[in-house]
């Protein structure tokens, strides 16, 4: 790997400089509507990092990350609703009145505390992911069965949240944009600018965290589990524990992501737990570059930005473009865009279309007149 490391770090450095320049410049350049969109997509990058950890590194394709994403969103929304419920009858959020609920359901109570909320946003999804993961991994369920199971779990959560009007406003979800925080409306411009900064910092923080996890032997065990789980076992490691930990971490990241996305889009609803949305998360990572953390971030931000631009111009065509993109990546760039760049893809492409004649190959050997290699 060492021969690539200098080139790889060059590419990384360039991309990081671009990202940081973008983040710093964005608030003064973009109108608040665009800034808000960028903030949302940056928050999606955090859930993509989690998908990359469990899928790109550990080889477990989860189609249920929407569960943990939505849980984080609900935690944040419940707090915000309670925080601004003072003026409503009984001091509970307004929607309860529609269903004749007069007493706050018990599980809402702790969300009156901001500290509890800030912890539960990541801890609650992490615990649920850990429990679910442990049961699944202990029974050695993997591959396609794991994917199907996570999708089934997603449907269970979706149906539960969708049907419980009296507990969490069911299919309507919980609005956050008209709630109050620090005496400001959450949907106001000044708050949205703050959320953008918080998101940008947390994306970078999440990247460092994920990087720290995968950079040494822990990450190597994850790759080992992906490539040959039996060898990991016979080397004396318990794969169940490693898989549970990484799945739990991905759940926690999804929760943070969901909370940031919720406050910036103004609502959390069971729509966060639909099947297509969780599959989209996988697509971001596949396109950006499985097993490259930066690729997950780029994939999430760029695909979503492209989505909003295309949807504004050609409303009906985005699904086709996204599907086509996925097929293109799977067939032509199996390691994603970033993986392709890192393995010298652009050079090969230039060579193929005849612009660049030089292709890196073995150094040519000096030959004497008899055609023998000179020593």
């Amino acid at each position: 790997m060492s021969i690539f490391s200098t080139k790889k770090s060059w590419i990384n450095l360039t991309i990081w400089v671009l990202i940081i320049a973008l983040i710093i410049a964005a608030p003064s350049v973009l109108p608040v509507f665009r800034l808000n969109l960028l903030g949302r997509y940056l928050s999606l990058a955090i859930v993509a990092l989690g998908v990359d950890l469990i899928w790109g590194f550990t080889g477990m394709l989860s189609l249920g990350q929407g569960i943990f994403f939505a849980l984080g969103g609900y935690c944040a929304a419940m707090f915000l609703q309670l925080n601004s419920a003072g003026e409503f009858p009984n001091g509970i959020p307004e929607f309860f009145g529609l269903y004749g609920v007069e007493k706050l359901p018990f599980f809402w109570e702790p969300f009156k505390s901001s500290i509890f909320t800030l912890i539960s946003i990541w801890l609650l999804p992490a615990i649920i992911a850990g429990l679910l993961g442990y049961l699944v991994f202990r029974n050695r369920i993997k591959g396609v069965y794991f994917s199907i199971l996570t999708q089934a779990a997603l449907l269970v959560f979706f149906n539960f949240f969708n049907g419980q009007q009296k507990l969490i406003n069911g299919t309507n979800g919980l609005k956050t944009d008209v709630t109050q925080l620090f005496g400001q409306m959450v949907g106001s411009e000044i708050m949205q600018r703050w959320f953008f900064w918080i998101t940008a910092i947390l994306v970078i923080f999440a990247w460092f965290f994920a990087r720290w996890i995968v950079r040494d032997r822990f990450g190597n065990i994850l790759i080992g589990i992906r490539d040959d789980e039996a060898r990991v076992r016979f080397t004396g490691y318990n794969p169940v524990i490693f898989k549970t930990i990484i799945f739990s971490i991905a759940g926690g990241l999804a929760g943070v992501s969901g909370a940031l996305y919720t406050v910036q889009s103004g609502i959390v609803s069971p729509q966060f737990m639909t099947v297509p949305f969780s599959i989209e998360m996988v697509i971001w990572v596949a396109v950006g570059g499985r097993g490259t953390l930066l690729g997950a971030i780029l994939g999430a931000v760029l695909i979503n930005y492209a989505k909003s631009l295309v949807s504004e111009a050609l409303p009906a065509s985005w699904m086709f473009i996204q599907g086509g993109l996925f097929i293109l990546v799977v067939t032509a760039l199996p390691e994603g865009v970033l993986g392709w760049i890192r393995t010298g893809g652009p050079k090969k492409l230039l060579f193929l279309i005849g612009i660049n004649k030089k292709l890196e190959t073995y150094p040519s050997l000096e030959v004497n007149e008899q055609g023998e290699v000179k020593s």
Partner: protein
Amino acid sequence: MNSPLLELKQISVSFEGFLALRDLDLALNQGELRAVIGPNGAGKTTFLDVITGKVAPTKGDVIFKEKSLLGQKEFRIARKGIGRKFQSPRIFENLSVQENLALSVSRPKTPFSLLINSLKVKHLDQIQHLMSIVNLQSKANIRAGSLSHGQKQWLEIAMLVGQDPDLLLVDEPVAGLTDEETDLTADLLKSLAGDHTVLVIDHDMEFIRRLDCPVSVLHQGHVLKEGSMSDIQKDPLVIEVYLGKSEEEEE
């Protein structure tokens, strides 16, 4: 004398009525080098599966260091000091040679320790030492998947040794190797015996002869005969089930 390091007592394994192992008895002493041969389907690999916890025996008991291994998880058995090399080389292809070995020498093998602690100097030295044993120092940072077949076999053996096991189970270490590599592997395994107990399974008679050690012949899930290579070759029963056939094929 001490009790044996590993003892299989009356092991039977049945896969839906088919008896892969039948009342198998085998004992290995500390520091011993032992070869196990047998025709295809004799139960050689199943027998390793039983020791390492991959397959639960239908009947019988496996005793290692005077304790039963039955019902233990594979990784716990590995930590107790049993290393296993698979038939085809199984290494972590996407990691470098050095990273492969680092995973094998790390202690303790818990997630927390891997995340927080850096590799100890003594383990770094051990990695260097292991690479020098199998001649891979120059490949330390090369992706293991790009090694040659023989180098992969050796890397896997080095990974086993890195686990510091009392017992090494080596399944067909010379399959697909050149004659020269085969000889080097035989010498390597012989040098490992003594400090470790080594059990080698193979087909290659020339290789087994070179190991110069006691041989157990497995046939239809049962130990047919134990003894030195020259005794084995004279035994009419063994010739009938195994050697006779293979010698004819060689001619």
